[in-house]
């Protein structure tokens, strides 16, 4: 337990600070760019799906980033502590940060007399997890953080153009009062995260 605690503190201090700062900036500029007073359910959904869910890309995508440098990867692999445990810890605190930051933003909206439901909150978390997982899977496959950011961002942009043609993978479905895609997005996101961790484990055995 002590080991997990020290790994968590070290990783948050050295790897999560910049991501967390970017998330705070995104959440702070959102009310400036977009009105947050007395929004109805659809308007709250627009705000949460189009702005807040982006935090998933920032927090989950860089889970493998420190080990993308070959020298660091080799050094870490030689350590007694499993790299997968480190990845899992990073993944866990990234997910917790998503839940907390989205929750805080939802509370803020509530204080601004906006209509907001628990389903909207869960849907936003599902979106964030899916976008982040898309980045994490790309990072696992390519070992390149830049490409890992590219894929979820492009998928996000595609949703502007393709709209509900994306079916159950349409990110802005709550804006049209359809909550079913959130189940698919959330479940696929979790699946992608675990698949990415498995890929990393297999890759380490092969090298």
């Amino acid at each position: 337990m002590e080991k997990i605690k020290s790994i968590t503190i070290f990783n948050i201090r050295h790897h999560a600070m910049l991501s967390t700062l970017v998330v705070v900036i995104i959440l702070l500029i959102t009310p400036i760019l977009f009105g947050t007073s007395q929004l109805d359910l659809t308007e709250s959904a627009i705000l949460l799906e189009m702005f807040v869910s982006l935090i998933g890309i920032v927090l989950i995508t860089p889970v493998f980033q420190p080990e993308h440098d070959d020298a660091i990867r080799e050094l870490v692999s030689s350590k007694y502590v499993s790299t997968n445990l480190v990845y899992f810890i990073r993944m866990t605190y990234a997910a917790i940060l998503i839940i907390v930051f989205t929750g805080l933003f939802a509370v803020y909206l509530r204080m601004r007399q906006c209509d907001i439901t628990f389903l909207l909150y869960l849907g936003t978390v599902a979106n964030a997890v899916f976008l982040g997982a898309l980045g994490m899977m790309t990072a696992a496959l390519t070992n390149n953080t830049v490409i890992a950011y590219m894929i979820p961002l492009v998928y996000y942009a595609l949703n502007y153009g393709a709209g509900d043609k994306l079916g159950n993978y349409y990110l802005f479905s709550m804006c049209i009062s359809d909550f079913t895609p959130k189940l698919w997005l959330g479940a696929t996101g979790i699946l992608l995260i675990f698949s990415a961790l498995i890929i990393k484990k297999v890759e380490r055995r092969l090298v």
Partner: protein
Amino acid sequence: MLFWSELKKTIAGIPYLLFVIVVVIALNSQGVLNFSNDKVIEPNPTANQNYGIKNEEIPELIMPAAIEALYAEFLENRYQTYPIGFVKYVKLNDDEQRKVAEIIAAITNIEIEKIYASQDSCSDRNDNAIVVGDNANIQPDGNGGFVISLESGIAEEVQKDLELSVRKDMSYSQFKELMQSVDDILGGGSNYAAESLIGYGHVPITYEEAVRRYELVKNRDRFTGGYARLFSDYAVAMTFSILPVFLAVIIAMKDKRAKMSELIYIRKISSAKIITMRFLAVLAAAMLPVIVLSYISNISIWNLYPEMKLDYLAPLKYDLGWILPSAMITAAVGICLTELTDTPIAVAVCALWWFIDVNLGMKSVSASCTLFRLAPRHNSGTKSYFRTQDYIDHFPKILANRLLFTGLSIVLVVGTIFIYEAKRKGKFLWKK
């Protein structure tokens, strides 16, 4: 030689393949790769054609429509504005609501108390109603029971109670001034701003106007220009205001990832040559697929206009004049910030810039080409190819915007050369 080597480095590998796939998917999703079903039809006086709607500054149309819209928003105390492009709903405090009521009273000659009373009646109805469906409400009947009723907009209903009409002695300039004060109270960006009032003046396009438009499409755009413009609008907004940064960052970090930076630093070749060739290679790689796609898109309409004089170079002109400056600025930001920080921070910077810029244009997709727009917009969907006169009117603004971004990207590339040179001399090596 160096250019080809940098180009090879850029296009060889998965990132470039992904770049091309994404560009194709993004443009295809907007339906701009095939215009074969979007023929510009020549106006025909005998056929019963609808030529569409346009906005004109006709006070007799604008004044009643604008005051009705303002009154409806006043009743609900919920005003839609676009202060910096994003939609923002403004709720006013009592003092501000009173000022708006005074303005409505000044325009309509209705006593301010009546206006206030109607607002109270509207909010009372809102407070006591429980919405059970889109159009159904449960309301207290006053005897401890409830009545279920169908409702079609409380504000509209109350509005009918009050006869709204603009005072006969109200001049249009006075009206504009008063509406501008409403916009000021709302914090700007509303439809009541003096320059936005024209949006309330809807008039149908006449046959003669439709013929004039068609002649412009035929003689100025030579048909292909309008399609190329629509293609460029989407290409810049959806892809080229963001994607080239990925290519630039990947290529700029490649030496570092391969641990070759120090080896290259000590070579004789000048920093100016390395950075310039790298920048040009990224641009060439980024522009190559879009030039091919713009011709695939444009060729789809060439057979729709037999015996007409078409401009076969239109796609290339718009590629180089409209799309290239966006590719230049995103690639330049990518190369500059990566050399400066040795991190992919440029991706976050460009993503945020693109995200804000694209959303800024939500209200003004039809024509938004202010000086600092990363992705200037000139888009009315499939009607875009009709808007040749609008394009001619906006051309100086678009030109200034594109020249500014071209200039800025050159400045950034020069800055990158200095940063690279300094790194070769041992400066800016953050982790050393």
